[in-house]
Each structure stands twice: as C-alpha cells, then as structure tokens.
C-alpha cells in the first residue's frame, strides 16, 4: 500500500523488463546511472500506477469495455431512431430485427432505446453513488479514528447501531418515494444515505495505524487544524484503497439500482432503467425472452468490466503483485486479491440477496 505521500515517493519499482536482458533491475539501474547522470527517467506516482495498470491485459479489456459502454450510453440515443418514451404501435413484441435492433417489448417500446437509456442511468447512479459514499466514508471513518477517546467511542457506537438493521430495508423505505423522471436522484440519495456506513468502519480500521504516524503527530503539534490534517494527511494516504473501493462501489451501486428498480421501489415509468426492464420482462419471459436476456447481458458485461478494472487497480497499487513488472530478484508474495475494503463493498452488494 502506498502509505508514503504520493508526491514524494520515488517510484522505486518502475523497472520494466521488456527486453530479456537477464539483468536484475538494480543492476540495470546502476548501469543507467553509470551511463551518465539524468538518464534515469523518473515518472510520477500516477504515471507509475497507470503503467502498471496498462500492463495487465484483463484490466485493459475491462477499461475498453467500460469506455465502449459509456460511448453507447452517451451517443446511443442519437443513432437510434426511436425514443424510449415513444412506443411503436406497429411493432408490439417483435424479436430483434433490422428496424428494432433489440426488438420491442409488449408495449411497443424499442428495447435498444430503453437499454441505452437504462445503461446511462445505471452508470450515472453507480458512479455518483460510489463517489459520494467514498467521500463520506473517508471523512467520517478517518475523523472517528483521528479524534480518539470519547468521540471515537460515540462514533463507533453510532456506526454499529446503524449497521444493526440491514441497510437494504432502510434504503427501501426512502427510495419508494422516488417517482417520475426525477426519481433517480431520490434513489441516489437513499442509497448514499446508508451505503457509506460499513465502508466507514473499514476505513476507520485502516486509519488506526495512520494516526500513529510521525507526520500526523508533527502536523498536530505544529497547530494544523484537525480538519486540515484529516483532509490533507490522512485521507490522501488511504488513496489507493479509496480508488479501488470507488470502482467496486460502482458495482454495488449498479446492483442496488437493479434490485430496487426490479422490486418496483426505485426507478419507475415513465423513466426506465435496466432493473425496471428486467421486472417488465420477467412477466413475459416465454413469449419475449429478449426483453430479459439483453438487459441481463448488458448488466453482466458492465459489472464484470468494473470488476476487471478494480482487480487491475488493486494489482497496480500492490507492490507485491505481478503487475509490478517481471522482477527476478523479488518473488510475488501472497495473493491479496480480497482486500478488506473490497470485501466490505462486496458484502454490501450481496446483502440484498
């Protein structure tokens, strides 16, 4: 984990061995230094992570799929002649064909237009939810750890108390008020209101060791305000975990949207979303299977691509992973695929079974 300040970290392991020279990285670095000062190219921390990320084929595939999905969601409405709100009464329940690429449902709505719109909804909800919960959880989690003593006790008690009742139930109460075309805002609000709690607990555990660091103490005794220490010193040092969990949080958000909309609590007509389409299609599963199969496929592809990106990021941030490059003098240590934070998000996603 990148516990040092990202800006001052000298990327010690940007040692790519593209050519099979048989030298260890240390040797090559020495050689490069001997060739003349300044020839060793240093890259920024973000550049290093990016390079390690791009080194993994699965992560790149996930990234490409996600970009294609975003492009479809943004430009899809322009290439489709139908609108998701306007039914085509001349073609009810037709299978996919040249005119209706994904077919139509029982009401004559063009499925391609609906799926494109739903995909956009899922992406917007998933990304907004992930960003909001990460920010809230990071601030609350580190603040509870930083202040110690009584505030920590009270804060943890409140977090524990909020975890007592499954958040799925609490969110359902709030999001049912969502309706019409503005309902998706309500859905994001409801999901966020209880989505950050479990996550804040894990971040607090991570911050427990950070708060003991010398630079935190130094800042404290120099009179830096608490809020500034939290925002400038504690949160940036959880950066890698926060980024990974934001990506996995998108999956959690998309899963929740699907679940609530399927139950008829989230997004409702006239708006549409992938979960809503599934609930519509499940009643006519035999006569028009494409109405459930296509949104299902889109959801699976979307979630798996996010998962690939999340895995890729995790390996990119993990100095022991294979993404750190083929290093001869360093064996990769145990597989850290399931980081603590990732599990919290995954648990949140699967709590709605």
């Amino acid at each position: 984990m990148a516990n040092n300040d990202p800006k001052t970290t000298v990327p010690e392991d940007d040692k790519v061995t593209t050519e099979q020279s048989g030298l260890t990285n240390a040797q090559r670095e020495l050689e490069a230094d001997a060739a003349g000062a300044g020839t060793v190219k240093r890259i920024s921390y973000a550049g290093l992570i990016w390079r390690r990320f791009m080194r993994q084929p699965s992560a790149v595939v996930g990234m490409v799929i996600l970009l294609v999905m975003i492009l479809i969601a943004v430009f899809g409405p322009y290439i489709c002649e139908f609108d998701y709100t306007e039914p085509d009464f001349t073609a009810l329940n037709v299978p996919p064909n040249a005119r209706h690429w994904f077919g139509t449902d029982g009401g004559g709505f063009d499925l391609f237009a609906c799926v494109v719109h739903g995909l956009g909804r899922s992406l917007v909800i998933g990304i907004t939810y992930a960003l909001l919960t990460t920010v809230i959880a990071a601030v609350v989690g580190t603040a509870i750890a930083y202040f110690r003593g009584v505030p920590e006790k009270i804060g943890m008690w409140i977090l524990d108390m909020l975890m007592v009742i499954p958040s799925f139930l609490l969110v359902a109460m709030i999001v049912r008020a969502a309706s019409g075309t503005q309902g998706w805002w309500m859905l994001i609000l409801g999901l966020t209101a209880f989505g950050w709690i479990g996550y804040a607990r894990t971040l607090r555990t991570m911050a427990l060791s950070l708060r003991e660091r010398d630079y935190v103490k130094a800042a404290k005794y120099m009179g830096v305000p608490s809020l500034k220490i939290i925002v400038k010193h504690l949160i940036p040092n959880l950066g890698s975990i926060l980024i990974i969990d934001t990506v996995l949080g998108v999956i959690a958000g998309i899963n929740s949207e699907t679940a609530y909309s399927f139950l008829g609590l989230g997004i409702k007509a006239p708006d549409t979303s992938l979960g809503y389409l599934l609930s519509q299609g499940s009643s006519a599963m035999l006569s028009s299977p494409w109405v459930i199969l296509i949104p299902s496929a889109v959801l699976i592809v979307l979630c798996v691509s996010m998962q690939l990106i999340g895995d890729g990021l995790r390996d990119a941030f993990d100095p022991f992973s294979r993404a750190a490059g083929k290093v001869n003098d360093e064996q990769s240590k145990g597989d850290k695929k399931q980081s603590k934070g990732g599990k919290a998000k995954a648990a949140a996603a699967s709590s709605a079974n």
Partner: protein
Amino acid sequence: MGRFLWYIAKRLLNYLVMVFVATSFTFFLASAFMSPRSNFESRTPRPTQESIEASLYRTNLNDKTPVWERYTTWLHGVLTEFDWGMTPNGDSVNREISSRIGASVELMTLGTVLSIVIGVSLGVYTAQRQYQWQDRVFSGVASVFMVIPTVVLAILIVFFAIEINQSAGTRIFYVTGLSSYEGDNLWLVFVDFLQHIFLPTVVLTIISAVGYHLSQRTYLLDEMHADYVRTARAKGLTRKQAIRKHALRASLIPTAVSVAFSIAGIFTGAVMTEKIFAIHGLGEYFINCINNNNIHGAVAVAAFSGVCTLVGALLADLFAAALDPRIKMS
C-alpha cells in the same frame, strides 16, 4: 466463568440498547416516508373522510396525531404486550410475521448449509492450488458470480429452468412457491418440495458460496505463508499435513465468524429470491409492507432483522472466542 458471563451480559445489554435505538429510528423514518392515508384515499369509491380518519386512528397510523404520540402508543404496546401494531387494514402484524418466518427458514436452511459446505471446500481446494488452472477457473467463475446482480442471476436461472421444462415436456422445476401437491403420500410431498426448493436453493447457494469461497481462499493463503507453517514443514511434516493440521485450522476462525452471521440470516429470509420465486417469507413481506404503506409491519421486520443480526454478532464473538485462544474476553 464469572468473567465470561459478565462479558456476555455486557454485550447483551449494549445490543439491547442498539436494537431499541435502531428500531425507534426506523419507526420515525418509516413514519416520515410512508403514508397509509394514501391507501384509503386512492380507493374507489373513495371512502368518506370520517371513515378514513376512523380507520387511521384505530390502527394508530393517522398522520394527524403527532408522531411522538403515535410512537409512545406503539412502544407501549410493544413493551407491555409484545404487540407490534396493526397494518392499515387492521390486521395484526404479529400474526402476519409469525406465519412467514417458517417459509423463510424452510427456504434458507438448505441454501445456507450448502453454500457454507461448497464455498469453504472450494476455497480450501483452490488455495492449495494457487495460480494453477483449477484455481484460475474456479476463482474466475466465482468473481464473476460475485458481481452479477442477484436479480439477473435468478431471472436467468428461472429462464433456463423453464426452457428445460418445455424441452422435457413435463414440469421438472417449479418456479413459484414452496409446495403445490395436496395429498397424503409422504414420498410425493417430499418430491414436490424438492421440485420447488431446487431453483431458489441454487440461486441462494451460488450467491453466498462465492463469498465463502473467495474469503476462505484468501484466509488460507494468508495462513499458508505464515512462519509457523514453515516451521511445521521444517520439522518434517508434509505440505498436506502442515496445511491440514496448522494452516487450515487457523484459517477457519474468520470463516466461523461469517457462518455465525449466516445462521442469523436464515430467519430473516432473502428479499430478492423470495420475490422472484414468489415464496411468502419475511423478505417478500417486507417489500409488501413498503408497497402497502404498512409502517408497523416494516418496522417489525426491521426490528426482527436487527435482533437476528445481533444474535449473529454475539454468536460470532462466541465462535471466535471458543476457537481462537488469542482472543481474551474483555
């Protein structure tokens, strides 16, 4: 022993306060976001204003009563008679819930047991073969199942089951409910039950087994790289012996903790699975409560889930304390 009991008592007291605060919080949240009044107002023909008010007052759901007054009335009923209130239609919430817990338990028990057995064994199996093809295949499949929304998984399974039924020309799998056979032949009752429970159990098993699989794999891998396992190997144990006698035992402690929570989850049911397979359990009841503005029902389900979660947490503490000698009761 005395310290042990004191520890349990302290925990229990803390949990009781938590359930109380969380349930009260849910009550106010539900009262703010649900409107039983709209149930009556949307009826055709619309009942007279007086009869609407009368029904709402009778069930203690009238939003014209201050919410604090409704809360104290409701709380008084809960604490003195364990009466969790009435639905907007005037039915007793207690009766509705108790009739549904059975269905949830019936549904969840098999799935929970299977998912623990399958998930943990797969985790142990793949951890021992890290980065070999078995590990890659199983863990890859598991991480895909991990992120697929439950709805999608369940719908696809239902879809393929119906396809199988059609191609077989007979009903092998039932996709709704828990039983449809009415008769006395015990064997047929059993077969009928299996036909109904099979698909929901598959769904539940998949979604929870992948969690057990991936976490057990990580726990065992962590332990396998620990120093004491290397010591055991150095003393002459084979790799298998070292894993079975040392690493595996230690790695099962965190798994036992999640098993504790799963046991509690058996009683609360599964919202999505119950909804899709039309099983009248607690999860489905909760969704019905939300859709029917049944404030008292929703709060009661939430409170029951809260109690189950905390029983799970208590069990988890006990499991961990019993299995892990490093944990002290304090």
